[in-house]
């Protein structure tokens, strides 16, 4: 087990390094000229003249050969320094750090709602004996993944803020301000939770041990919740990494819709301003979160499921 953990840790570090490299290749080598962008943006308000561009070029090391630049930047990144944001001039790490809490709040609330509604829907759909109800419930998740999140958010604003005037339309104002964005965020994620859980619940209900339990005379609720759900939620755990990635990505759109401060809005702004260091920081941060979540899932999974621990670990990524 310890060897497995060490291996997984090394793998995670490898993926992060590679993610950094990919973002470096995409952002620093593709056509868009970062120097002209920097000279033309943000707080660095000297005029754009060739001399200044040349100065910036050498200052940021763009005159160096690509490998030299890469090693230089990677070295800095390893020390947690992703450079300064072009617009605003603050260190990328502190820009991300400042924006993070409100996004975490949103993502956590969205995840909780997604599990609550998605899980509840899956349970209800598999539990009910009425065919039409099951059909109806199972037709909701495909709807949930088909609706553009930004549009769902706008419609909620239109209905609950502008018409009914029940909830704030924008901003970070406390719990009430969190409701609409979190619900919006939970729609596509909850739909996926429901689909995955319903599928594995149906599989679990067909297993022999359920038949055994039934034969022993256990009641339907007991079979459903104690036996089937317990076994069905384990496979569902493997998609947590995917869900967190999806939640973070959706937060970009949702924070824009609700004018909420946070990492997503920072990202959208950074893309608009061609703020390359900041975009790179966000991309690597996204990969870090994804890798960490998967690492935790993988390390916790064997503890929950003794069959896998016995088999000596499994391939790390859920399909």
């Amino acid at each position: 087990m310890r060897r497995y953990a060490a291996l997984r840790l090394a793998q995670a570090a490898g993926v992060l390094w590679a993610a950094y490299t990919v973002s470096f290749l995409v952002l620093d080598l593709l056509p868009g000229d970062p120097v002209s962008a920097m000279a033309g943006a943000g707080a660095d308000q000297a005029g754009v003249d060739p001399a200044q561009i040349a100065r910036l070029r050498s200052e940021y090391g763009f005159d160096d050969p690509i490998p030299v630049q890469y090693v230089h930047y990677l070295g800095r990144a390893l020390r947690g320094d992703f450079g300064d944001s072009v617009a605003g001039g603050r260190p990328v790490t502190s820009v991300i750090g400042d924006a993070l809490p409100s996004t975490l709040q949103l993502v956590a609330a969205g995840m909780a709602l997604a599990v609550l509604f998605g899980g509840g829907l899956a349970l209800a759909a598999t539990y009910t004996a009425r065919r039409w109800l099951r059909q109806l419930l199972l037709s909701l998740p495909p709807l949930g993944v088909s609706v553009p999140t930004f549009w769902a958010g706008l419609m909620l604003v239109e209905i609950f803020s502008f018409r009914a005037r029940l909830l704030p339309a924008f901003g970070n104002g406390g719990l009430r301000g969190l409701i609409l964005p979190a619900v919006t965020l939970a729609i596509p994620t909850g739909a996926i939770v429901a689909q995955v859980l319903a599928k594995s619940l149906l599989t679990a209900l067909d297993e022999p041990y359920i038949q055994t339990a039934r034969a022993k005379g256990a009641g339907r609720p007991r079979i459903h919740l104690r036996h089937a759900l317990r076994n069905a939620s384990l496979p569902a755990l493997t998609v947590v990494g995917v869900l967190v990635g999806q939640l973070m990505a959706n937060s970009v759109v949702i924070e824009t819709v609700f004018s909420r401060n946070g990492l997503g809005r920072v990202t959208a702004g950074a893309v608009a301003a061609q703020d390359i260091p900041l975009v790179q920081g966000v991309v690597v941060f996204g990969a870090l979160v994804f890798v960490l979540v998967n690492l935790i899932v993988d390390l916790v999974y064997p503890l929950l499921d003794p069959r896998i621990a016995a088999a000596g670990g499994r391939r790390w990524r859920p399909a």
Partner: protein
Amino acid sequence: MLAAGLTALTACGSGGGGSGAGAGTPRTGGTLTFAVGSDAGCTDPQQVGSNDTIYSVRQLVDSLTDQDPSTGKIVPWLAQSWTISRDARTFTFHLRPGVTFSDGSALTSEVVKANFDAVPKLGPLGLLAEGYLSGYQGTDVVDDLTFKVRFKQPNAQFLQATATHSLGIEAAASVRKTPQQRCAEGIVGSGPFTLQKYVPSQSITLAARKGYAWGSSLWKKQGAAYLDRLVFKILPESGVRTGGLQSGQVDAIGSVGRADESALKSSGVQLLARANPGVVFGLSPNNTRSPLTDEKVRQAIALGIDRQQIAQTVFPTGTQPATSVLAHTTPGYVNVGAALSHDPARAKSLLQSDGWTPGGDGVLQKGGKKLSITATWAPVAATNKPALELLQQQLKTIGVQLALKEQPVAQLAQLQTSGNFDLLFGNVTRADPDILRSSFSSKLANPYRLPATGLDGLLDGQAAEPDQAKRLDLVAQAQRQIVQHAYTIPVVELQTELGVAKKVHGVLFDASSRIQLHDAWIG
């Protein structure tokens, strides 16, 4: 006195006054939440030019003088009195005693001198302030509260300039910082509010200054402001601002467009409107870029625009189509509307005579090159995008393809410095015709890259002309030349329209149609 004669001409537009004047007894305390659409990325009043940000940073500083929005008269503020030499080259000010900045330092002649001395070094964002001080020779400190500002040549517009936010007085500690630091860290002023927190692109929070006792002579309330706190939230979507005001999430919003008027009115919101003086909203070409170097192309574009339609479709009720390069509320304005009529037939024939022939897709072309021009704009007002799309639609009918390119507000100054644009869409607010010189003289920053012509002489002449009648004659000639050669293409006058909740009182427009919040209170 010279300035009085000049500004007496300021005819003020619709609205005027302010919100809910005289309704109930003013109450002290409370927070006013004001939603604006954009952030200039800077909190230094001397460097900010876009209205959305001026609304907040204006409250940080006091000016030497103030300008009465209804008469245009220059009145005391930090300066109790002043005299102007007969040749309009030397201005002597007497400061009010006992004024302090929020860092505790006192307002003295030395501090004002330091402010003026630093203005020419402000760089690209300081274009307005630099223009006001053009020909600046120096400031002589006579005593602690008396100083003389000297200019190389007569500078008729300077007294009005001292009333603007651009020449608001900052503490010595702030003046010593670099322009970039002042933008990012904010500045220390003597104004009725102090900067509490600035989160770029998100919010600007101000707190009332305790012990403030040197307000403008125009203000009704003596001493400190009524409100405790001002929060300026940056909400880029006008729909969100409007909805936020209707649902009570914010107390006031800037830049109301025509689309939102009826909804706001029906929910009991007060709409405050005032026409902005200065250079109207228009398409300003980079005059060195082909095909805009061609005067006929510029003139044809000017003829292809239906200004009335734009004013009536997009802008707030009461907005006037441009009838000159200056708004009708600017002193010295002359109506040259005949040259700005909508005449697509003449525009087409002008382009035809210039050698442009119709291409397959309806866009004119010459020598294989399409008549396609890019208009660059920043989202400083909710009306910009629909106005430009309508312009695009109108110009298409004369065979001109107008592409639209949006840029962040913070990049506007950069663009002007770099000249990296075909057409810029924008306006400049100022209650003095000298704004023509700041914008169009080839001897100053010359953001639109005009060639050196007789226009320069007119612009310099009006700035130096102590005789009011003669000055205004020069201003009129300058307007005619600019419009005739289409150095800029005027479109529509800016009328600032604010939406203010019923419970908010005493939001006052200043002479430049920006706001003063010292007298504002929430009932």
